[in-house]
């Protein structure tokens, strides 16, 4: 379910999710910082959960990490 939330967030922004779910979507240049923040906002709105952005930004932001964070809620 959380996987679908993340994929929907990409769709909302007209962006394609990376094929590698371990790659950092920001550092890889797939999306810029503004798009990243919007992606996280979409995830929040879709999931109804508020992410700890500061903690999130401390590491790579990959699909797998995002999903792990959502799974922990």
């Amino acid at each position, binding site marked *: 379910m959380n996987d679908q939330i993340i994929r929907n967030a990409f769709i*909302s*922004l007209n962006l394609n999710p990376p094929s590698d779910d371990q790659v950092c979507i920001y550092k890889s240049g797939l999306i*810029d*910082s*503004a*798009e990243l*923040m*919007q992606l*996280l*906002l*979409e995830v929040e*709105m879709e999931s109804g959960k*508020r992410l*700890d*952005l*500061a*903690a999130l*930004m401390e590491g790579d932001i990959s699909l797998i990490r995002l999903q792990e964070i959502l799974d922990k809620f």
Partner: protein
Amino acid sequence: MTDAIWVRFQKIAQHNADKVAIIDPASNKKVTYKELEISAKNFADCLARRSEGALIFIGEPSLEALPILLACAAANWCFVPLSDREPQDRLLRTVSQLPGPLILVSSGGFPDLEIINPELPLRKLELCWQIITGKEKSASELPFLVTHSSGSTGRPKAIAFSQKTKLHRTLQSIELFSVTETDIILSPTPLHHSLGQRHFFIAMMTGATLVKAYPFSQETWIKAVTNYKVTFAIPVSTHLKILQSTILKNPAILKSFRCIVTSSAPAEPEFKRAILDSAEFEFWEIYGMSETACATSVRYEKGHPTDSLGLAIQGTKIRISGDNPDNSGEIEVLSDCICDGYWGDPETWSNALTQDGYFRSGDLGRLDEKGHLIYLGRRDESFTSAGLSVFPAEIEGIIAELKEIIDCVAFGIPDNIFGNLVSLAFIARKDLRDQDVIKYARTKLPKHMWPVRLFRCEEFPLLSSGKVDRRGLVENLIKNSEIKS
């Protein structure tokens, strides 16, 4: 002579003796110009026998107490109105910064101040009269009126006006909006706010009738307008926004109006268009501040752009400081209506002016190719996000284009990585989803102004002036936010 206000008022009062000068819609009590003049003269006689020279009035004067403002003009006293919606210790701190000695008048009284028994006409007001000792002043040191700037822009400043300056500013408004003695002027704004004073003096200096409908509520505003057939008002844009849906559903509410002027904080273009389409009256917007009076004005026309605040008015020049590549910067104003400084604080006043006498407004804006002013928000409200400047007013203007939005405030939440997270608090109809707001923002705003934090609110806190208490709102949202920066 410094009694310019009083001299003109007497002429007006004699010419309009039996005409209603002020109406209190709550009680439907009315006072004629003749009654107002007599009452003001009686109060002035009492004041003239005292030596303090300055009177602080805390709270909104009743209809019976309002003549005291004119009495101060007649007796060459200084009148300092203050809000009673502030904590007592903050009020006393403000009072303690004013040069004494002073008489303080309030409904409840203040601890540690000596209570005095004023002469009979003053005592009849049934207020608590107290005295604050301080260094003696000569009459020439006293302004006529001191207005404290609202807390929305930081530490309140005691803005001083002589009678001559106040009259000049009042005549500026009268001329600009063609106000005459036939006008019925609505004032839902307190007297301690410069707009409330403007309403009062515009009426008293023309012979018009003032409908003093304070405190503001949608119901009292509409009742006052319809019952007294109000023709002229200068509402703050927040009041208009609160009234918006009712007005748009029933534009006939406004049919008595000749002229509406919105001020204090620029209204959103979409809202202005809706108001323009709803009724037949002159619809103006002005830009200015207590220190400078009106700086620019624009009379909007149906079908024409509503996104600028117009051109500098006669006697005023505006310019934009700085050398930003997008031509934005602080709005600076040179005006022949400028106030007479900050009372008791010449250093702050000196710092507020450029070397060539322009007033630093603290507002950000830019001029279009025709010299029309585009407002971008308060300088201290703008912030950077990811190293780029964000102007809250620009975001708010776009978001307000959504018809389901009732009000919105953009602000920055401090963040270690981005500097600030662009955030948006909004009040909206229930059928507008958060997703709709953000999608619209993405289609209309540059990337660095896309909100990343949304706060849906039921209402915004308001200052007594009717403006949104942005500072209080933002502090509260940040405090209650679960965000860890």
